[in-house]
């Protein structure tokens, strides 16, 4: 039964090997999705290239359906899949900072590594910035530690929070994703005409 690590099918060492393989696969998928290019990523925020939304929603729907049906088939114990606590204020602020960085730099942490690996200079600079940020965060951590672990809501999942069944949430997310795909295609056509900018 999955998750294999928690059921002790292998130890930490082999877990790292698997993490490496999955990481390479993840990076490859990001690069093939065009996420190694800051222009495509930043375009999402101006709504003239909706590729980020499409790729992300595809990933979410695929993973969600996989987890749901694996759990239903009894292959996976969902209660053991790591699910971090929700710290509402620190996470809102953190998301805000990440979003600003995303729109300015054109990358999120994962895609900056992808663009670095394909030799893009802006990605490399971005990566240096990440390490600098980590260093600063580590140095000021004692000062912000209280805020960091404040407004702890514990483990919150959508079915619990909304009081819906798991399947209902899965259905709603699928509908939301398909609606977003349709809206994205439509918006791209409209804005491409208006701005005279081609869809990549």
């Amino acid at each position: 039964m999955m998750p294999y690590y928690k059921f002790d099918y292998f130890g930490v060492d082999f877990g790292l090997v698997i993490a490496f393989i999955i990481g390479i696969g993840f990076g490859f998928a990001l690069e093939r999705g065009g996420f190694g290019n800051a222009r495509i990523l930043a375009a999402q925020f101006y709504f003239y290239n909706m590729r980020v939304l499409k790729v992300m929603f595809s990933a979410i729907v695929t993973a969600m359906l996989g987890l749901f049906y694996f759990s239903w088939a009894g292959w996976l114990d969902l209660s053991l899949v790591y699910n971090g606590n929700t710290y509402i204020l620190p996470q809102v602020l953190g998301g805000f900072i990440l979003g600003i960085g995303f729109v300015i730099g054109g990358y999120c942490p994962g895609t900056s590594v992808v663009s670095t690996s394909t030799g893009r200079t802006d990605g490399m600079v971005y990566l240096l910035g990440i390490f600098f940020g980590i260093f600063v965060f580590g140095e000021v951590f004692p000062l912000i530690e209280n805020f960091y672990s404040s407004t702890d809501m514990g483990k919150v999942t959508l079915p619990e929070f909304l009081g819906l069944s798991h399947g209902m949430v899965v259905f709603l997310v699928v509908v939301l994703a398909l609606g977003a795909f349709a809206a994205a295609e439509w918006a791209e056509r409209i804005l491409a005409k208006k701005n005279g900018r081609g869809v990549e």
Partner: protein
Amino acid sequence: MIEWMNKLSISKKLAGIAFLLGVIALIIGDSSNSNAIYVNAKEMALSTIKNNEKIEASVLADWLIEGKYDYTLVDLRNEEEFSEYNIPSSYNIPVESILTSDLMRNQKILLYGNDDVASAQAWFILKSSNYKAVYILKGGLSAWKNEILFPKLDVSATPEQTAAFEKIKQVSLYFGGTPQSVSGGTATSLSTQPNAALALPKLTVPTGKIGSRTKKKKEGC
């Protein structure tokens, strides 16, 4: 119909599949009932008979002295009793919160309560929730007290018994216990301070608690 389906682009086909799976998920409702447990009764009965999931107090004492810590020692009593005395290196997780604790499925877990009752209950809960390696300290804390903290040597003991007791005595002193010799029902302390009262050793190390850890776990992205 087939012709119509062939005309659709791949992304439209995928969208259709996703929608179909979403509708089926809606019908299924909940993918698993997390409170339901699945018990392999035969396996459990076998391990109860074989008794190989019980650890003697003396074995645990040896492990602690050797510094063998490949297991997590869990104290199932309440917080008050725990803060009064606990076996070194133990964590306090009362039985009722054993499932919500941070114990991992692949961890080696050694349980103890005042006697065997609480640990047997916790053992069953954990085993039925797929915890792999759950052990019980045989006799619980009372056995630990009798065998390790306050071991008794009968005055009429044979020389072999006395020799064997010498080791037990050292172990007992290591854990701050009071070995005694017994003659006709009255016990005399054998420790360095004569006539010292039979007191539980003072706790010198701050006690660990898994349940109320506030630190974030280092997992996830």
